[in-house]
């Protein structure tokens, strides 16, 4: 078994407690208009072309053992700081068997967390989150039509998984990426709070550099 990764980033400060490394898995079933990691959308390997003309390959296949070994090179500071590894993407649940295999190798030594859109079949979702110490669950929109329009998916899938997350008892936080004119009104806030049903909600400010990587893939940022 291999998994496809487009970035391994050390010392990520926004992805959970303690000192962490975040693994970005390549490929996502959604197409959020504001996605700031467009190279994480396709499941295929790609080439990014930098402004200076340099070509940067994007997408590398790892075995669970090799990836765990690479990540555990920093096990000392991860463990001493109460940190670990966070799986992100792309959509890590799209490579759930791989994520579970890596997590199993990491867990005796360091913490594991996941950042997910929640866009996956319910059984897959439950299997993965049950192995996580912490879950960052995206809540991108509260309205099914808007979710279809902006993200290209069915909101019901996500809401069902959020219900599973709450039932699971796994520590979690709901993350709302605030997008100007899409989901950032007062009324939107009220709707998000209602959907959260008591789970903690973090509102993430819009990243004005979100479109930066699109030209490197020969694409246009539409938002």
């Amino acid at each position, binding site marked *: 078994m291999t998994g496809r990764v487009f970035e*391994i*980033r*050390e*010392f*990520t*400060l*926004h992805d959970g*407690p*303690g*000192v962490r*490394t975040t693994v970005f898995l390549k490929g996502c079933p959604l197409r959020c208009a504001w996605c700031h990691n467009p190279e994480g959308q396709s499941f295929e390997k790609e080439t990014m072309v930098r402004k200076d003309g340099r070509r940067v390959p994007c997408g590398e296949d790892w075995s669970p053992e090799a990836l765990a070994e690479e990540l555990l*090179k*920093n096990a*000392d*500071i991860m463990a*001493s*700081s109460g*940190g670990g590894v966070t799986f992100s993407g792309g959509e890590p649940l799209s490579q759930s068997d791989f994520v579970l295999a890596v997590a199993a190798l990491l867990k005796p030594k360091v913490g594991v967390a996941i950042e997910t859109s929640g866009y996956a079949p319910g059984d897959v979702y439950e299997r993965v989150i049950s192995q996580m110490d912490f879950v960052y669950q995206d809540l991108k929109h509260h309205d099914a039509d808007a979710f279809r329009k902006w993200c290209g998916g069915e909101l019901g899938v996500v809401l069902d998984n959020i219900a599973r997350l709450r039932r699971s008892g796994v520590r979690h936080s709901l993350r709302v990426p605030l997008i100007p004119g899409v989901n950032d009104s007062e009324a939107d806030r009220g709707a998000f709070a209602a959907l959260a049903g008591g789970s903690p909600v973090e509102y993430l400010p819009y990243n004005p550099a979100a479109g930066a990587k699109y030209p490197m893939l020969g694409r246009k940022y539409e938002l």
Partner: protein
Amino acid sequence: MTERIKSLLDRTFAKEQKKFRRDVDWKPLLDKFIAEGVDDETRARMGLEAMLAAEEPAFMEGETIHFLRTVKQIPDLHSDAEMDARRAAGTAFGEKGVVFNLTADFGPTIAVGLDARLDEIAARLAKAEAEGDAEGVNFLRNADLSVRAVLGLADRYGIEHVPHKGARTLHEALQFLRILHYAMWCEGEYHCGLGRIDQYLFPYYDADIKSGRLTDEAALEELEEFFIACNRDSDLYIGVQQGDNGQSVMLGGVTRDGKNAFNDLSRLCMKACGELKLVDPKINLRVDKTTPLEVYEAGTELTKEGLGFPQYANDDVVIPALQKWGYELEDARDYSVAACWEFLIPGVGMDINNIDAVSFVGSLDAAMRGASAAASYEDVEKAFFGEIQRRADALVKKYAHVEILPGPFVSVISTGCVARARDICKGAKYNNFGIHGTGIAVAVDSLAALKDVVFEKRLVTLSELVKLLDTDFAGRPDVLSAAEAAPKMGNADPRADEIAKRLIAFWGHAFDGKRNDRGGIFRPGTGSAMYYIWHARDVPASPSGRLRGQPLSANYAPSLDVPVKGPISVVRSFTEPDLGPVCNGGPLTIEIHDSAFAMPDGVTKVAQLVKFFVERGGHQMQINTINRETLVDAQKHPDLHRHLIVRVWGWSGYFVELDKEYQDQIIKRVELCA
């Protein structure tokens, strides 16, 4: 911050102090020195007397700690022709030749007062006269008059008690310190450090608190006023760039008898800096493996403000390293930094910690050109080390006979000069010379790349590679790509890190057994000072893929524009070598994106990173919090970013006041945690 401090701070930023300034032409004084053949010691005293006589007491509204420079120029004591003649006769000088990069022993004089020091000088003078010690007599007479000149200006300021008598309160101690520090600059010394203020000022703080004279808030206000004063005249101080003025403070560490020295005053000093957000004084913080995380967190609060300090120094590495170099244990425990990061013992060190530098990138370039027939990678590395040794030996020869110009006043406030009846320029307890090693990461990356490209992938021969370096890899993009893809220092990749270990081990012993004519040793280091800009001009492209004209990294840091996994791997790589033998100083320098502190626990995480560095045996570390977009914008709109502070090489300065070459280098540095 109180309203009074806020007002002083605002007016200092607005440069109100400049309204007191005037120009003085000192040429007649120099002409007199030359015409009358006045000796060096007397010139130094007469220069100080003339300078202080020309100074007018000046007061900024609301201040209680006085002494402000009003005369812009400090007298030149020697003409260029005189200095050139001495050089031609075989004398070497460190930079301008005067005492510099030095921290005096402020504490004892603040305790007893200058009147008592005059008595001491008089008693010693009587002895020198009785012994017929002409040199001693000349020094002591000039020392006496220098002290009187300082007292004269203090009297004209109308300051009471200090500096005649010893300080009784924290406020008096700070006023006294201001006078002594100010007088050093007026005597012509530069890069004058402040040393361990949390140690030598602690008794006054402690007595004030215990007696109820001061609350912590009031003590903070006094410290803040003193710190603001350190920023008023700093544009008149000599440096390569604005901000490079050596006003360093060392906090924490251990006492001379080995007890934990981090105290309430250390904490208060950090708090004052965090509130003021000024470039001076530049805070250094001594830590060791027992330092609790909360001390690192307090330091990181300053990092978060973008001040570029504290710079951390690791007692576990530095103290034993200094001992190995012959420093006594009690002295080693008392270490501070000279101006930037060169470890120095205040009061007893007349070390010239940055007398010169060896360019590793230049050494490698020369070695490759001389070893084009090398049959193996090992041959190239051997030739490289041989070239480093050749350059090290040349520096030993170059600085076989160094003279330092006298400073009678700084001698009085240094340990033992009066007792010895000799100016500090003749030598103190420690008289070592420090040599920087620049471009470590580019040299290591270059060796790793040439090993890969020439001896493993065999894309080119060594002589072909050397030719490509002269043309920026023209026509061979494949070689450039392979060089860029080769292992780099900072990625925890043993293929690069093992080379770094061998290089640093070699460099650490390149001066073993060598002595200068003051009996001192040569201390190799990992700092660069401004040589990271200068040495980059001397070489074409590098085998690492660095193109001609691209700067080197400052100090001990990954090459610019090199992709690294992140700060943990950087720390891992840069703590692999044994850093004791290269403890002249030279910090691991990393840049962190300011968004790192957007989350509430960002401070804790960055603090954990520093703690990790220390636990892994790092010697020294500094962290810049920057945002590339802000820096680029500041180049375009300097008026909007007048307060933007960056760490340059061993000091923090205002970004918009730097030359573009230095600005650009900072923008190119690896920015972690974006």
